[in-house]
C-alpha cells in the first residue's frame, strides 16, 4: 500500500481560517463527546430509575407504562430515534415549544436533541437493570419494610433502592461504557463530537488513518476513565458482607 503518512498535519492550522489546529478540532470533539456522554448518562439514570421503579410497583398502570416505555425505546434503532427527536418531535410539539427548539443556535440544538435521544434510549436499558436489581432482592425485604409501617415510598427509599443500586453497579458500568460509544451516533444529526470531527478531518486533510487512529484512541481513553470512575464508585459503595471483595 502506498499511503503517505503525515502526522504533522495534526499541528497545522485548519483550512477554514479559524485560529485552531486540527488537533484542536479533535480536542473539541473529545470534550463534546465527554459532555454529551455525561449529560445523557444523568438523564438516563433519572428516567431509567423512574421507569425501573414503576415496573416493580404494585400499581398495574405504573407497571404497564414502564413496560411500554421499554418496549418502545428498545425495539427501535438508536439512529432512527435520533432522527425522530431531531426532525419529528419539534413538529409534533405545541407551536411555541417547537419554535423555541428550532430557534436555538444550531449547535445548541444538536446538543440538546442528542442528550434527549441518547438519554431516553439508555434510560430504557438502565430501567431493565434496576428492575432486575430490585427483583433480585428477597421478597421479605419489601414485606418487612411494609410490616414495620413504612409507606411504599419509604420502603423503596430506605430499604430496597440502597441495596438494589449498589448491586447493579457492574451492569451500570457496562451501560456507561455503551452510552459513551453510542454518543457517536450524534454525529449523524450534525453534532461535531469525536466521530463527527473524524469525518470532518478526513474531508479537510485527506489523511484518514491519522485522524481515525486519534479518534479511536480518544474512545479508548474515555473507556478507561469510565472504568476507573465506576471502580471508585463501586469501592465506595459496596454493601458489606453482600458482595465479593
Amino acid at each position: 500500500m502506498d499511503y503517505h503518512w503525515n502526522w504533522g498535519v495534526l499541528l497545522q492550522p485548519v483550512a477554514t481560517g479559524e485560529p485552531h489546529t486540527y488537533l484542536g478540532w479533535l480536542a473539541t470533539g473529545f470534550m463534546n463527546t465527554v459532555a454529551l456522554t455525561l449529560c445523557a448518562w444523568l438523564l438516563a439514570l433519572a428516567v431509567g430509575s423512574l421507569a425501573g421503579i414503576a415496573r416493580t410497583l404494585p400499581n398495574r398502570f405504573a407497571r404497564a407504562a414502564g413496560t411500554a416505555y421499554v418496549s418502545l425505546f428498545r425495539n427501535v434503532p438508536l439512529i432512527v430515534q435520533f432522527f425522530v427527536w431531531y426532525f419529528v418531535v419539534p413538529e409534533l410539539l405545541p407551536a411555541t415549544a417547537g419554535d423555541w427548539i428550532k430557534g436555538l443556535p444550531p449547535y445548541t440544538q444538536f446538543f440538546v436533541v442528542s442528550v434527549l435521544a441518547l438519554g431516553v434510549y439508555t434510560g430504557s436499558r438502565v430501567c431493565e437493570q434496576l428492575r432486575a436489581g430490585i427483583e433480585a432482592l428477597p421478597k421479605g425485604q419489601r414485606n418487612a419494610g411494609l410490616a414495620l409501617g413504612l409507606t411504599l415510598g419509604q420502603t423503596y427509599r430506605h430499604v430496597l433502592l440502597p441495596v438494589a443500586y449498589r448491586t447493579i453497579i457492574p451492569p451500570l458500568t457496562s451501560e456507561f461504557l455503551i452510552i459513551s460509544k453510542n454518543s457517536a451516533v450524534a454525529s449523524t444529526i450534525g453534532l461535531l463530537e469525536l466521530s463527527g470531527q473524524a469525518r470532518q478531518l478526513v474531508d479537510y486533510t485527506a489523511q484518514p488513518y491519522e485522524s481515525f487512529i486519534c479518534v479511536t484512541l480518544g474512545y479508548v481513553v474515555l473507556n478507561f476513565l469510565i472504568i476507573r470512575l465506576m471502580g471508585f464508585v463501586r469501592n465506595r459503595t459496596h454493601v458489606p458482607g453482600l458482595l465479593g471483595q
Partner: protein
Amino acid sequence: MFEMDWHAIFQSRELLLTGMWVTLRITLVAIACGLALGTLLAVCATARSAALNAFARGYVSLFRSIPLIMLLLWFFLIVPQFLKALFDLPPTVDIRLVSAMVAFALLEAAFFSEIIRAGIQSLPKGQWQAAQALGMGSYQTLRYVVLPQALKAMLPVLLTQCIVIFQDTSLVYVIALGDFFRRATSIGERDGNLMQMLLFAGATYWLICSALTLLVDLMKRGRRSRVGA
C-alpha cells in the same frame, strides 16, 4: 396533527423493499460469519493456552471499545484497499455493502464469542472429564459434548443478540449504504415528507423487533416450564 399518506409509502415500496433486503443480507451475513468466528474465538478463550487466551481477549476488547460508527468508517477505509490488492473484483460488486458485512461479521464475532464463552464455562467440569474418560480427544469433546450443550443453553441470548444486530445495521447510514433506513430517509427528502418516512421506518423496526422479542420470550418461558416439569 398530520396524517400518514399511505399511498405515497406504497408507491415507494420497491425502493423500501430493496433497502430491507440489504438490511437483511447484512444481518444474515453478520449472524452466520459472527457465529462461526465467535465460536472459534470462544474456543480460543477457553483453551488451555495462554497465547490463545490473550489473543481472544485482545480481539474482543479491541472490537468492543470502538463505537460501531467508527468501526464502519474504519472498514470502509480499509476493506476497499484490501479487496483491490487481493482480488480482481468486478466493478459491479458494491464495495460499501462488502465493507459493512466485513465490519459487522468481525464485530459480532466478538459479541457472540462472549456469549458462547459464558455458555461453555457454565457447563459442569464433569462434562469435560466424562468425555475425556470415554477416550474423546479435545476436538471430539468440543464438537459432540460441549458445544451442542453450550449453544442450546445460550440460544435465547444468541437470538436477542440477532435482534440487536438487525437494529444496529441501520448505522450503515454513515457510509451511505442504501439499507432500509437510508432509503426511507432519502425517499422522505426527495418527496418532502421526511417526517412521515421517519415515523414509518421507526414503526417498521418496532413491529419486527418486538415480534421477534416476543418469540424469544415465549421460547424462554417454554423452556423454563419444560425444565420445571
